[in-house]
């Protein structure tokens, strides 16, 4: 019984791929690729979340400054009537003095302008608001949204860069698998030819290579992921208090995407090996 089982196991590898495609170098290289891919994925996800948060929380916030002698209430009424304005509120003078105190000290006699906090809804056209501001002598609008937009553009750029890196990592991984497959073909050329002449289908031979390489890639990617997760968690713990003013939470990491990495690596290994082998086999009579 044990003998038959042993035979069955050997028979599953007539090409001797367990030796020809050893489980050391390729998984190590794919593991390094997976580590980089995990960093790129987390970078893309983090940049995306940051941009989303800024867009939702900060982009619609504006601050209007009015000369001290201008009555506030009519301006508030005009602003509140504009399309897309979610809220309008005058900042209390006491609050302004509190905000200035660290820089100017206690100066109760200092004349301060009126400040009005305006919140716009998403995707609001700012032109009507700017037109109103121009009709009020001495009024100034602080376009915080412009700064936020620039920051968002930066975050989107980072996200695109991370995704491009991910694509490059995928291509490099595919190239690695193609090189490993060619090395495997060179090592087992005679065996492949014999199987071909005994009537093995191209799909059978290519499938054996593809399954072996898919397994090695999945193994390597799982190893790379094991290194990547503690590194990503450390980065999140360091970065989030600075960027979002809060501690890192477990759901700050893109777990679903990270979990897909070994499967994606296996798919790259399987597909690349299949294409490489079939192209080579097609040259045989």
């Amino acid at each position: 019984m044990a003998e038959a089982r042993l035979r069955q196991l050997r028979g599953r590898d007539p090409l001797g791929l367990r030796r020809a495609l050893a489980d050391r170098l390729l998984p190590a290289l794919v593991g390094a690729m997976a580590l980089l891919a995990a960093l790129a994925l987390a970078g893309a996800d983090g940049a995306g979340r940051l941009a989303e948060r800024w867009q939702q929380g900060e982009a619609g916030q504006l601050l209007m400054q009015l000369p001290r002698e201008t009555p506030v209430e009519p301006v508030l009424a005009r602003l509140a009537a504009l399309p897309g304005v979610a809220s309008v509120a005058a900042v209390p003078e006491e609050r302004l003095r509190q905000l200035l105190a660290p820089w100017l000290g206690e100066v109760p006699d200092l004349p301060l302008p009126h400040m009005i906090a305006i919140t716009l809804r998403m995707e609001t056209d700012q032109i009507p608001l700017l037109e109103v501001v121009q009709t009020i002598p001495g009024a100034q609008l602080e376009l915080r949204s412009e700064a936020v937009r620039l920051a968002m553009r930066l975050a989107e750029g980072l996200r695109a860069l991370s995704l491009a890196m991910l694509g490059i990592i995928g291509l490099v991984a595919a190239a690695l698998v193609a090189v490993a497959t060619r090395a495997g073909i060179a090592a087992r050329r005679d065996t492949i030819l014999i199987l071909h002449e005994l009537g093995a289908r191209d799909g059978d031979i290519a499938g054996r290579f593809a399954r072996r390489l898919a397994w090695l890639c999945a193994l390597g990617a799982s190893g790379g992921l094991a290194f990547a997760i503690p590194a990503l968690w450390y980065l999140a713990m360091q970065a989030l208090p600075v960027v979002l003013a809060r501690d890192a939470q477990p759901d700050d990491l893109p777990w679903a995407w990270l979990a897909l990495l070994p499967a994606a690596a296996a798919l790259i290994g399987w597909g690349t090996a299949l294409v490489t082998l079939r192209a080579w086999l097609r040259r045989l009579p």
Partner: protein
Amino acid sequence: MVRFSQVGLRYPEGGGAWALTGIDFALAPGSFTWLLGASGAGKSSLLGLMHLSLRATEGEVEVLDSRIARLQRRGFPALRRRIGVVFQDYRLLPHLSVFENAALPLRIQGMTEARLTADVREILRWVGLLERAESPPTTLSGGEQQRLALARAVVARPALLVADEPTGNLDAAQARRVIALLREMHRLGTTVIVATHSEALPEEYPAPTLRLEAGRLVSHG
């Protein structure tokens, strides 16, 4: 069964010289044929066309009632499985045991482990290698390796058996044993063609012959 009509073969890497020209013959089902000729006469090329490892440059090759030129690529594996081949240099797989080498054609056909074990043991007993079933082929003598190659060629009970100089590397006693096995396959109904440069074998075992000289068929009978 096997029919060659005005077949020519030219290797692209051979500088354009013809390895075979104007080959015309037919083998009847269940026949035993000697393919004779000196080294370089074209015997291996002709057998290569017959077991589909080469494609004719011109003319028509028909093997097991299939016209090769009209056969689509996906049809070749099924046809190859009906042809057994014994190579002069054995072409055994060194990383597999004697049993696994003999079992290869059955595994390629997708036969279950339970079914193939009985068939492979029977064929190894037939060629006298059952006791060496778990040994690597590299530990066998030349004669034993050739018998293993023969076992692999016939284990799937092919309709056509092609043997290229199967006794070329063997002493007289081993050669007789291999020829006896080939004749036994013929007796069981397989069409057998055996290439040899030896003139003694056809004299010792009379059978129809094809004789090649410089890539041309000079006699058939």
